[in-house]
């Protein structure tokens, strides 16, 4: 039952708004010192604390971190999808030369769908259970683009075909519960790319899916992103997911970017102990069975009362006194575009000395950190390279 008349709702955007007169060079998205804090009874939760990066058209940024590191909040902050009350936002977000850091939901609405879109984590709950797939895809098309219903239907069919859904005509008339999880995520992707956004957020798009489907969905996202020259922010807790698919990777911890680098640089010259620990926690195919995984001991810090120095210091095998007092800034590394936040970086004489000292004092649990950093083999052994080869 529909109470609203099935008329075409007026266009959300004027043509010149959709196709800006700005030159196409320059970053699509420029994020500077973004902070997002939530007011709670316990105090201010600093979910995102001073994050800066820039993203160019057609590029993919992988945002990696464990639960509670602020990666989802970061993507929702950029998109402006945060709750209305109890949120403190600071910093600047420039999208296509337009400051949107403090835009109202009404202003953001002109960007949602047509300029930026999001694929959500759980395809089980992000489709409306009582609406047919057809309507869920055509609705944004009719709303944003000035097209007829029959053309919208054609587009919906083309979209479903392009995201690799078999029998797309039949699926259009089905309800979400008749589709498998992987297919639902494909539908979600079809909806997200329907209006041709320039920036696509994929917020852990494969977490809720069967492992066998994960690679397919990631490949699909990558293929669509390349075909449409979208910029993509791929949020995940799995380094393996972004390894072959992101141009650049930002590792987040406790609301901060702790290391940021082009993908190959990150895996070959990782500097931050947290990145190293994340890579080590990927199970390796070459390990004998029943080998214990290298886990990161402890839990992420409380974001209300974060430790004063480096936020990773309580869990870091390289930790020194300085780390507990003074928070390291984002230091530029030798490689272009590579920056990290560490006083005793992995793979440097300082880092090795710090590790030696800790080991001599018996502070590092035996067997958690090897002497050399087998970064490159770790990745290939973890099957990361294999996953990336299927993308094109």
């Amino acid at each position, binding site marked *: 039952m529909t109470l609203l008349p099935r008329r075409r709702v007026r266009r959300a955007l004027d043509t010149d708004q959709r196709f800006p007169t700005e030159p196409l060079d320059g970053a699509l998205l420029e994020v500077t010192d973004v902070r997002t804090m939530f007011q709670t009874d316990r105090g201010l939760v600093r979910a995102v604390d001073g994050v800066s990066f820039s993203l160019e058209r057609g590029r993919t940024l992988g945002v990696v971190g464990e639960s509670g590191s602020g990666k989802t909040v970061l993507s929702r902050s950029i998109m402006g999808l945060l709750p209305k009350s109890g949120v403190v936002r600071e910093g600047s977000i420039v999208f296509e030369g337009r400051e949107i850091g403090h835009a109202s939901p009404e202003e953001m609405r002109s960007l949602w769908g047509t300029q930026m*879109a999001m694929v959500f984590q759980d395809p089980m709950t992000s489709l*409306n259970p009582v609406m047919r797939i057809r309507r869920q895809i055509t609705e944004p098309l009719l709303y944003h683009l000035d097209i007829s219903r029959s053309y919208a239907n054609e587009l919906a069919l083309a979209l479903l075909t392009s995201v690799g859904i078999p029998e797309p005509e039949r699926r259009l008339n089905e309800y979400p*519960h008749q589709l498998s999880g992987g297919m639902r995520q494909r539908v979600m992707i079809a909806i997200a790319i329907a209006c041709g956004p320039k920036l696509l957020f994929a917020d852990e798009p494969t977490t809720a899916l069967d492992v066998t489907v994960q690679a397919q969905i990631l490949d699909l996202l990558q293929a669509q992103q390349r075909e449409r020259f979208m910029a993509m922010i791929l949020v995940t807790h799995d380094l393996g997911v972004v390894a072959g698919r992101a141009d650049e990777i930002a590792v987040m911890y406790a609301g901060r970017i702790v290391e940021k680098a082009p993908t190959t640089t990150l895996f070959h010259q990782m500097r931050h102990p947290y990145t190293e620990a994340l890579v080590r926690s990927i199970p390796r195919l070459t390990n004998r069975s029943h080998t214990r995984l290298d886990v990161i001991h402890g839990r992420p810090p409380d974001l209300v009362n974060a430790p004063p120095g480096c936020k990773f210091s309580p869990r870091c095998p390289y930790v020194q006194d300085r780390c507990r007092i003074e928070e390291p800034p984002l230091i530029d590394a030798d490689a272009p575009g590579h920056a990290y936040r560490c006083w005793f970086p992995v793979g440097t004489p300082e880092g090795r000395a710090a590790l030696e000292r800790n080991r001599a004092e018996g502070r590092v649990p035996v067997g958690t950190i090897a002497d050399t950093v087998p970064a490159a083999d770790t990745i290939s052994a973890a099957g990361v390279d294999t996953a990336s080869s299927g993308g094109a």
Partner: protein
Amino acid sequence: MPELPSSPAERLAAEEDREGLPPSEPLLQGLAVELGPQGASARRRLGIAAWIAIAWMVLVIGSAVLASFLPLKDPINWADSSHLNQGPTLAHPFGLDGSGRDVLSRVVYGGRVSLVIGFGSIAIGFVLGGVLGLIAGYFKGRIGGFIGSVLDIFLAFPQLILALAVVTFLGRTTVNVTVALAIVSTPILARIARASTLTWSEREFVLAARAQGARHRRIMFREILPNVLPAMFSLALLGIAVVIVAEGGLAILGASVKPQTVSWGNVIVSGKNSISNAPHIVLAPSIVIFLTVLALNYLGDVIRARFDVRESSL
């Protein structure tokens, strides 16, 4: 295997039926798709009790609508003054009342007024309560709090007294009684709509719709409302039953429609003084009300069970 249509006309008809369906799809599967793949046939089966309830409602509503075409005595002006309080006979199956009027005719005609009040007030309450509940549940802040507390105030007020007061002020007409009972039913339906909206609006598909640039009104009416409706529908059917009973209650308090208008409540009232020597006058409309309420309650349950979207199948 379905039989092949023999004549060209039949074939044409079969062809037409298939229009709009994918070619491979058997015709009936279109229905099954509506109800879900599992147990589609089991769900489509209603069971004998549901059919009896439907039949009863068809009988009651049909006779009320067609009352003037049925071979019934005039419910007000026809009277057999020689057989006052006569029990059921072949000519008058429900007997005659204290003024010699035909009770069957009065029950059938009374159904017109009672059903209009029942369906009308719930229809008003459904729309009003639905919209209020959606707004209150969707905008959880100041607006939602305000609407919520106003609804609570209405709920805290004794409902019969509220209806009584409204009818007394507005006058004892069918429309006013309908309005009075609509005022009573609105907060109840609004509460259900609000509670249901509160849970549905937290779902990720609402956020997904927002991320696609949908406006609040669109999200409320196109995304959330279809999910809220089933809960409201089943409650509304129960509500109709409750309102029909409430009309009887108001009649006994002398606050329903005027005595010269026939309603089920008024038929009961007309027999209440002779209940000891002529119980059929009170019993006939009471039993009709009882069966109607039973049928509506049962149908409400059936509808709820049918449209119950189980979490697992999401």
